[in-house]
């Protein structure tokens, strides 16, 4: 090929979010007909780099050239016009519309009298799906499809855009192995027709199969770039992890006390199973007081579902197995009961399910412990202010006034408010779901310090996380979940991050990438 220019050339890309340098002086080149894998931990800067390329992020340092022509996109539509399509991890489909309608959303085919040409859309959609090796009825509503099928629809949609550059963010996370094979055929076909593909994944064997090049990012910088067929998993893991993570973490106190929580063969059979949910299907584990136990696992392994079941907020169904709190069997019935028994919960998405963003810091902090600030349902304002101030001090919350809206705080400080609310209920056991997601490095360190302190005071913690360094650095033990079952348990004293990751990768598994910074 007599290509004189690279399809995509990104030079000196930099992007800073507040105090976090998400990308720093990154050079990235993608050739026509190349499949380029992008690797790295959460927050390594992969997503940011690709958001810049796809026009999602418009303010950055450095320059981008497509086929030698400098570009600066003003938004995703702009990037699409230049032939760049991104398949997002969170599927951007309209559930109520049919497959065909979704594929042609916003650029519907018209008849000569300008009405929607449904028949032609369905025919073309069927052709596209056939090309991707999927047999799906284009008339079916997308909401009825499995997550994997939805993923294939987004891929078909991206192909229909006739993109020259295709960015795939964990495209196989919900696919079956035969679907994965089909997808690889499609990828090879696209590559042969000159499309450049950026392939973000953690699955080493996939990368070895399909990628021509692989680049590892760490802390916003490119660490290495290699031929994926030539490097061993161990070397890649080292490249990804190779930073002194330990300094971030407070070494956990190894003194643990009596058994606090015991879960025996817990199963939940949902009355109305929902696609994408993985309810516990035989989980056993224990948490001692003063112990921090990590929950690891893939996207869809059932970490969140386990915590929700323990807190009593999982959807209705039949629960079997036993849950014992301090030796006594309990039946989780909901947050009120759980809090009364001393179980606190910090949910995964603090904006959607943790806080009332436009209410005050004060109101958000005390809402779980209100009855204790007065008598006969009347609030003693001084008492609630005192409690809120005390908690803000303890958590080193950075804020102006207690009556400021909680939405004005940074992500890390918002998370501290959710923590503070739970701590005011004086829990014995804390269930944490991705407590440091979207939290800056400084606040992360403070949350870790707090967890160490709480454990030292005898609190038990069950911490679900998809960040390996966090699990290894903070937890005493890590339990790995897969398909709603506990499949392995590591003591972090004798296994490190690399071992854990290598073990996980060796099983073809892999830790899901979660947006990160």
């Amino acid at each position: 090929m007599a290509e004189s220019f690279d399809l995509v050339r990104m030079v000196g890309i930099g992007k800073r979010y507040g105090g976090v340098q998400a990308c720093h002086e990154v050079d990235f080149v993608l050739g026509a007909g190349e499949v380029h894998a992008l690797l790295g931990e959460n927050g390594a800067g992969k997503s940011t780099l690709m958001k810049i390329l796809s026009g999602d992020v418009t303010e950055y340092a450095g320059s981008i050239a497509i086929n030698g022509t400098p570009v600066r996109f003003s938004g995703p539509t702009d990037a699409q016009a230049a032939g760049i399509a991104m398949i997002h991890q969170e599927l951007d489909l309209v559930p109520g519309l049919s497959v065909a309608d979704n594929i042609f959303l916003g650029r519907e085919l018209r008849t000569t009298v300008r009405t929607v040409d449904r028949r032609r859309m369905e025919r073309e959609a069927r052709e596209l799906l056939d090309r991707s090796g999927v047999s799906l009825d284009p008339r079916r509503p997308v909401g009825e499809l499995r997550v994997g099928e939805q993923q294939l629809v987004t891929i078909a949609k991206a192909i229909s855009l006739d993109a020259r550059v295709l960015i795939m963010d964990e495209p196989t996370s919900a696919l079956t192995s035969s679907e994965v094979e089909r997808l690889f055929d499609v990828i090879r076909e696209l590559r042969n027709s000159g499309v450049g593909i950026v392939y973000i994944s953690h699955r080493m064997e996939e990368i070895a199969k399909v990628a021509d090049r692989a680049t590892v990012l760490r802390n916003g910088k490119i660490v290495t770039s290699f031929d994926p067929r030539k490097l061993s998993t161990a070397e890649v893991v080292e490249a990804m992890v190779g930073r002194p993570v330990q300094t971030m973490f407070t070494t956990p106190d190894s003194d643990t006390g009596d058994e606090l929580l015991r879960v025996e063969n817990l199963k939940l059979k949902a009355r109305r199973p929902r696609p994408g949910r993985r309810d516990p299907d035989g989980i056993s584990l224990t948490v001692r007081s003063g112990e921090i136990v990590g929950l690891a696992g893939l996207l869809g392994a059932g970490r969140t579902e386990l915590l929700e079941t323990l807190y009593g907020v999982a959807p209705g169904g039949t629960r079997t197995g036993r849950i014992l709190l301090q030796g006594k069997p309990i039946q989780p019935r909901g947050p009120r009961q759980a809090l009364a028994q001393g179980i606190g919960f910090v949910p995964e998405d603090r904006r959607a399910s943790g806080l009332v963003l436009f209410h005050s810091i004060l109101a958000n902090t005390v809402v779980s412990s209100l009855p204790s600030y007065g008598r006969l349902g009347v609030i003693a304002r001084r008492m609630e202010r005192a409690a809120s101030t005390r908690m803000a001090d303890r958590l080193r919350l950075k804020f102006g006034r207690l009556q400021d809206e909680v939405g004005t705080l940074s992500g890390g400080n918002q998370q501290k408010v959710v923590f503070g609310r739970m701590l005011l209920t004086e829990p014995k056991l804390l269930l944490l779901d991705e407590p440091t997601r979207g939290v800056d490095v400084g606040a992360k360190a403070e949350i870790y310090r707090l967890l160490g302190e709480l454990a030292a005071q005898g609190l038990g913690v069950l911490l679900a996380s998809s960040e390996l360094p966090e699990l290894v650095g903070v937890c005493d033990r890590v339990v790995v979940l897969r398909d709603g079952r506990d499949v392995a348990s590591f003591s972090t004293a004798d296994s490190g991050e690399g071992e854990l990751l290598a073990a996980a990768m060796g099983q073809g598994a892999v830790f899901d990438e979660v947006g990160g910074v």
Partner: protein
Amino acid sequence: MTDVQDKVVTTEKPSVVATLFRFQSVFGLIAVFVAAIIFSPRKNGEILFVSADNLANVVRAVSEIGIIAVGMTFVILIGGIDLSVGAVLGLAAVGSAVLMVENDWGFLPSVVLVLAIGLVFGALQGVATAMIGIQSFIVTLAGLQIARGLARIWSGGQGVAIAYGDGPKEAPTSFALLGERTFGGLVPIPVIIFAVVAIAAVVFLRVSAFSRHLYAVGGNEKAARLSGVPVVRVKIAVFAICGLLASLAGIVHAVQLNQGSPNDGIGYELDAIAAVVIGGTSLAGGRGSVAGTVAGALLLGVLNNILALNNIDSNIQLLIKGLVIVAAAALQRLRPTS
């Protein structure tokens, strides 16, 4: 608390604009009041609008909608809506009349039963939204039909006139007192009832733990639930309060008109919602106040009054009211948010 710099950045005095927006309905009320004085017809140099009689009429006319609107504020604060209040008012008016006139019940038992009916009716609507999970718009739309139907059945489809006295088919004279004036004949009792309800609601929302739960449910129901707020209980209680206040307004209505008709209160729910919206309470829930609603109700009352005093065509009145509601809602969109 430790970082001085952070404090300096975030601690700003609320700007003048923010204050204006915050008390939007109060300023709106003052503006409409001043406009009413300016445009008021005069008789022998006396400004008719500010005459004691006229002002008493304004607040008297506002009291029923005002009482309903207080309950509506609660419902809207939790992100719901109650379309049944006008029909519940009709049911309560009919109930008062039938019980006291046709059944010869005493004042107190009649009032207690009528209030209880409103309370239970509201609570049932709360159960339907909170426990079955039907949207309150649908539940109370159905509730509206049901309450209206019950009122028709109970009254036999006709208005029941209330005559006072000790004889049979006469309501006790103690009931008539509710429609009188007090404080030297200046203040109508319905206005006092409205004032008591409003003040009680303001105080309740300020000091009770329940109110924190209420605002939390409206602000983010999922977060409230995970925080241990008894969401179902809060919702049922709020709809019950709204039903109770609607039936209280129905009693006031019956005594002011000396009758109970199944057609009483048609469209009142819309006026109540308008008062809440003008008062700055967000239909999305979690943000708003009873004080704003009171100002909103008074604003609408003054507007009605001054238009009537000037003999403005009633169709034009509707038009102007509509524009005021849109203007109030538009102002809220402009409100600076952080």
